[in-house]
């Protein structure tokens, strides 16, 4: 596959990098990345991955754009209010880069559909805001042997880690079970600065680009934390849990499952 003149120009700042080069750019163009959640984290990640020329981008979200999203979900515009987020996100990605393919999943990701969806992708980004979804994505990715980027944000803080099959610890090595509802605040309850979502979402995109191109070191076995008020990044070493319920030899989880949804969440819909 040779580059067209337009591609050489569009991706010239990538191609000139010795860690990417023409080979890395071709890998990006042939890569398939799934973003679960077209919100604060997924929005910047999707924009940068589309701009980078990731050949196929899947985006999953069952929500529609709300006015309160626009403070941080920069892939959607005021005119998109009321539209499915996946459609708005697709339009924005294709406006930046019409060369890519975008697949939309206007549905909730559940234990029923997740394995079939992630199977088609090389790398998954968790941009969801709730713990049942984060554990579901972790378990499904471990079981399907898919690398993924986990991230979370709240107030002025964010964190992320990368799971690579057979290498680092998984999310469940660090956190065994989702916390009970209301004990750990969500962004809806506690707030979040838009730019924190931008920082962490971009770092997730960076991990995807590095995984695809093989450049540098991934955040496997490490948790990166960001404190915007102190303006500090820290990296915390994460061991593997040799008794992990999903990624260890003592596996007790053999199929993805859904944690029960708290009723207050459903009422908000």
């Amino acid at each position, binding site marked *: 596959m040779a580059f067209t003149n337009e591609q050489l120009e569009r991706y010239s700042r990538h191609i000139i990098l010795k860690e990417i080069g023409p080979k890395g750019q071709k890998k990006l163009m042939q890569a398939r990345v799934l973003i*679960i*959640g*077209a*919100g*604060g*984290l*997924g929005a910047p990640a999707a924009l940068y991955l589309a701009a980078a020329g990731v050949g196929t981008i899947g985006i*999953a*979200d*069952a*929500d529609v754009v709300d006015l309160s999203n626009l403070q941080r*979900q920069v892939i959607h515009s005021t005119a998109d209010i009321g539209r499915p*987020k996946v459609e708005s996100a697709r339009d924005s990605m294709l406006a930046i880069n019409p060369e890519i393919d975008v697949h939309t999943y206007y549905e*909730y*990701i*559940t234990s029923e559909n997740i394995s079939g969806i992630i199977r088609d992708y090389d790398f998954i980004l*968790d*941009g*969801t*805001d*709730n*713990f*049942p*979804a*984060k554990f579901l994505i972790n378990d499904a990715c471990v079981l399907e042997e898919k690398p993924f980027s986990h*991230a*979370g*944000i*709240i107030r002025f*803080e*964010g*964190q992320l880690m990368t799971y690579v099959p057979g290498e680092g610890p998984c999310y469940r*090595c*660090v*956190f065994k079970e989702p*916390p009970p509802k209301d*004990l*750990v605040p*969500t*962004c*809806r309850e506690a707030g*979040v600065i838009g730019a924190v*979502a931008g920082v*962490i979402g971009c770092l997730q995109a960076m991990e995807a680009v590095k995984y695809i191109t093989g450049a540098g070191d991934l955040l496997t076995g490490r*948790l990166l934390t960001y404190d915007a008020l102190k303006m*500090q990044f*820290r990296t*915390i*070493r*994460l*061991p593997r*849990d040799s008794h992990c319920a999903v990624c260890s030899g003592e596996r007790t989880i053999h199929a993805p499952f859904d944690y029960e*949804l708290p009723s207050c*969440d459903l009422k908000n819909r």
Partner: protein
Amino acid sequence: MKIIVAGAEKEYADGLSVEDLIEAEKVETPQYVTVTVNDSFLPNTERTSRILQDGDVVEFLYFMGGGAADR
């Protein structure tokens, strides 16, 4: 003794348990916080019995949601 807590050097009296440290550092919802000591996970059941030593490195790992309301 000096220990490193969340990246910062702190001075504490000898005999401090991880449970004491959690209290002293005012860790929120500690039952849902994962603790590592010297890059190893510390089971919640060992927080009282684990006495910290000079030079120990302690991290508190917090649940963080955020992103998009997927459901």
